């Protein structure tokens, strides 16, 4: 068998089905007029393809169709409202928008929740004194200040300094540190 016969025989199927260009059809038909061997092969192939094309398509039995219906749309005919709604969303190609909206809501919640604590800022913790202790300290401070006045009048600077160190309660000393400018020093 020549190379040309081999090439022509490969075109038989498309030739029979009418899928060749005009040039190719002409080539095949001319070759078949001259080559007896190819002509025999073509006839066999034609009969075989014709028989295969006529093999019937069988009808699917009704009981199978019924089973399919029962397992698919008949089963889901009473869908919940939310499922129908989601189905509507997917069919209308709103999926990207729905996902985007959900992401925005999550982001807003994540960013806003921490800011809700700014309305009630926490007070710095300080030393805790009872009301009784504060009253007592105030009384002692008043007496000490009177005594200091007396000492200052007597020009006793050293005594004033010592009194301040010894007599004033700690809380008063701390608060007076920066506010009283005592004669002769701090």
């Amino acid at each position, binding site marked *: 068998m020549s190379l040309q016969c081999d090439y022509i025989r490969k075109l038989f199927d498309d030739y029979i089905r009418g899928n060749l260009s005009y040039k190719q059809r002409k080539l095949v038909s001319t070759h078949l007029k001259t080559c007896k061997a190819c002509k025999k092969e073509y006839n066999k192939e034609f009969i075989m393809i014709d028989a295969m094309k006529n093999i019937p398509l*069988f009808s699917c039995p009704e009981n199978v169709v019924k089973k399919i219906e029962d397992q*698919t749309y008949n089963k889901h005919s009473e869908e919940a409202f939310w499922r129908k709604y989601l189905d509507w969303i997917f069919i209308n190609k709103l999926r990207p928008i729905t996902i985007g909206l959900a992401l925005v809501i999550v982001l807003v919640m994540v960013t806003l929740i921490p800011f809700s604590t700014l309305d009630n800022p926490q007070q710095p913790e300080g030393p805790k004194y009872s009301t009784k202790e504060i009253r007592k300290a105030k009384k002692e401070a008043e007496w000490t200040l009177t005594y200091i006045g007396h000492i200052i009048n007597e020009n006793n600077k050293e005594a004033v300094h010592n009194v301040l160190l010894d007599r004033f309660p700690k809380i008063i000393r701390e608060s007076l540190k920066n506010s009283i400018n005592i004669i002769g020093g701090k």
Partner: protein
Amino acid sequence: MKKSIYKKFLTKNKDQVFSYSLYLLHCLEDAEDITQEVFIKLWENWHSINPQKRESWAMRVTHNACIDLIRERNKIKQTTYDAQTIGFKEVFDNHDMYSNPGEKYYLSEQQKVIVSSMAKLPEKQQNILILHYFYDKKIREISEMLDIKESTIKVILHRARKSMKTLLSEYFYEKKGGQYEFAV
């Protein structure tokens, strides 16, 4: 909306899916099961399938399901269904559905010869011949369904036709003028 589109698709393609399963499996019950399985899967995966490729998807799933079942049968060696080792007479005599004229699965003797000869071919050749000639599918469509390159399908098709001619050679009778007759 999904229901109405699905219903139309089912009406249009059920015979194709069922016939394809039947020609591959030669068993009515198995073909019915495969058809049911394919359409239920289609319903469940409806939204993830490209609407333009639903038919290819359905045929591909049918093909894969049939091949899996054939391989399972071969494993447990159910030779009753193995058309590659049994002559065509036994295959069709065991299945009355093909033999009674007027019955919905009736095949003529000539058609039985074609179908049983096909059953002797390798799996891929058989599948491609069925899709190309029984269902008049183009090479491009078959390539999409079976996920095989178009060039590969052309080669397989060429080999399948050659093998079929060899298998059917005893049924070709030469007439005068180089014409042939296919007689059983």
